């Protein structure tokens, strides 16, 4: 039990750091784009914990700016896709009939694109940039929420209190909002938590492929990509951003696991 709460504390601390860097990083007087030619590829030291990159920019400053990039991309993608997906899923299950059939087919079709492939193709076609990444990942992301919301709504649709609300003539939107949504929200929150971890990896992955955030804006994915060219002389350029990325993803995943246990949701 003790080791469990330690790991929860650890992941909470990392997530807290990540969020605070995202929100308050701009007050820290950072210079992520400042080029210092004398410091090119300087390894980590006590003055500069993470060293400098191939243009002599401070890796520490770029890590913190990158935290903001990954936080806001994942926030917006999960926010948009959870809302769109949940609304579509609930309405499909509630209305049933041909509408539900069509939605189920559309979900199946979107799920037929393996993993990150559709996002890669979309980002490649839309062109790089933070907005296009958010669009590409949302187009891919809503499906999971829609499928889950639909399944959950179907499983509680015939409960007595919902039938009672219907019989009393409660307007549909009120029934869905007050009686259906509260009952299905727990698994959706868990899905959203894992979704954040997934989007953090996807954003960095697209940026790593050169399809995401464009230089000079700092993104952990772009930093890893730049670092791969100097692995022999400056391994810290790859190690630092990757560690930051892994710590955040690991912490968010651990939090998701805890939430799932707490809310007693069966692993699907």
């Amino acid at each position, binding site marked *: 039990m003790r080791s469990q709460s330690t790991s929860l504390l650890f992941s909470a601390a990392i997530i807290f750091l990540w969020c605070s860097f995202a929100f308050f990083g701009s007050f820290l007087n950072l210079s992520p784009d400042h080029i210092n030619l004398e410091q090119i590829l300087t390894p980590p030291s006590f003055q500069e914990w993470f060293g400098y990159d191939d243009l002599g920019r401070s890796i520490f400053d770029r890590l913190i700016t990158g935290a903001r990039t990954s936080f806001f991309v994942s926030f917006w993608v999960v926010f948009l896709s959870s809302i769109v997906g949940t609304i579509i899923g609930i309405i499909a299950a509630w209305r049933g009939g041909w509408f539900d059939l069509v939605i189920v087919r559309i979900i*199946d079709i979107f799920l*037929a694109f*393996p993993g990150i492939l559709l996002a*890669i*193709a979309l980002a490649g076609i839309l062109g790089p940039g933070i907005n296009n990444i958010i669009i590409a990942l949302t187009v891919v992301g809503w499906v999971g929420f829609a499928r889950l919301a639909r399944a959950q709504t179907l499983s509680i649709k015939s409960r007595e209190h919902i039938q009672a609300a219907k019989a009393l003539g409660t307007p549909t939107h009120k029934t869905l909002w007050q009686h259906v949504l509260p009952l299905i929200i727990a698994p959706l929150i868990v899905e959203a938590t894992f979704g954040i971890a997934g989007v953090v990896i996807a954003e960095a992955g697209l940026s790593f492929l050169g399809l995401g955030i464009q230089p000079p804006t700092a993104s952990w994915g772009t930093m890893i990509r730049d670092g791969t060219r100097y692995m022999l002389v400056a391994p810290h350029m790859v190690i630092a951003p990757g560690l930051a*990325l*892994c710590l955040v993803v690991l912490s968010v995943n651990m939090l998701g696991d805890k939430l799932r246990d707490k809310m007693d949701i069966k692993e699907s």
Partner: protein
Amino acid sequence: MLRFLLIRLGSALVVIAGVVCIVFFLLHMIPGDPVEVMLGESAQPADRAALRHELGLDQPLLKQFQVYISGLAHLDLGKSLHSKRLITEILSERLPATFILAITALIIAMLIAFPLGILSAIRKDTLIDRGAMGFAMLGVSLPNFWMGPILIMIFSLWLGWLPVSGSDGIRSIVLPAITLGTALAAILSRMVRSAVLEVLNEDFIRTARAKGMSEWRVILKHALGNATLPVITVLGLQLGALLGGAVITETIFSWPGIGQLTIDAIQQRDYPVVQACVLMISLIYVLVNMITDIAYGWLDPRVRLTE
């Protein structure tokens, strides 16, 4: 069984039709003009019009769609804008490499996941269990575009044991396959663990133990056999993530498969090739899932009876 088979085939066909539509319209919603990209901004209007006509881009969208579909029906995916070669030819060169990489990654993942999952299930709540599940958690959180470079750094640059990239000989597949297989190994070992745990509560396990069967035989013969089925379904679904991950892994290791082709084509704005690659990878995924589904229904009659 025939009814089950027909339902599965029918829904796979609907999905494939949908995938074809999405891939086609994806290409035609590109902002800007592919002709401009190909010829550059300084091209003469007459040349542009000629190229547009040659590519069929001056036709109405529905007509273009019709041409595309009839091409597909004749297994004609068009030509690459970059190399001017037939796309079917390029794909047939690239597919085997991706296939070999994916299969090797799959084998590595299963070799790690089954022992680890079984061990942590029978030693539930011990240090072994916690360590194994910690590894699983780490495995899903390590992105392959970081793990790949780190492996290259350690095993190629520092130790010099394995080649950095390319695809000659068996030694060059080790790092890409490990990079690609780790996440799958992590997810699978969790699945194996929970499947074995579930089966261990069944009556037939108690009977086997009561008969005095050795614990290892109970696990290997009765528990594992029954736990394998749900794991196979997950395996089919996870193949999608594996194929998606292959795109990134192949790029890191310059592995000459369809994933690297996709990224190269995106960078060269070779849209027909991008279209063909996305279509091909998705088709493989849909087919594998359909086969898994059918195999599952065939092995376990309960599945097809609930349809």
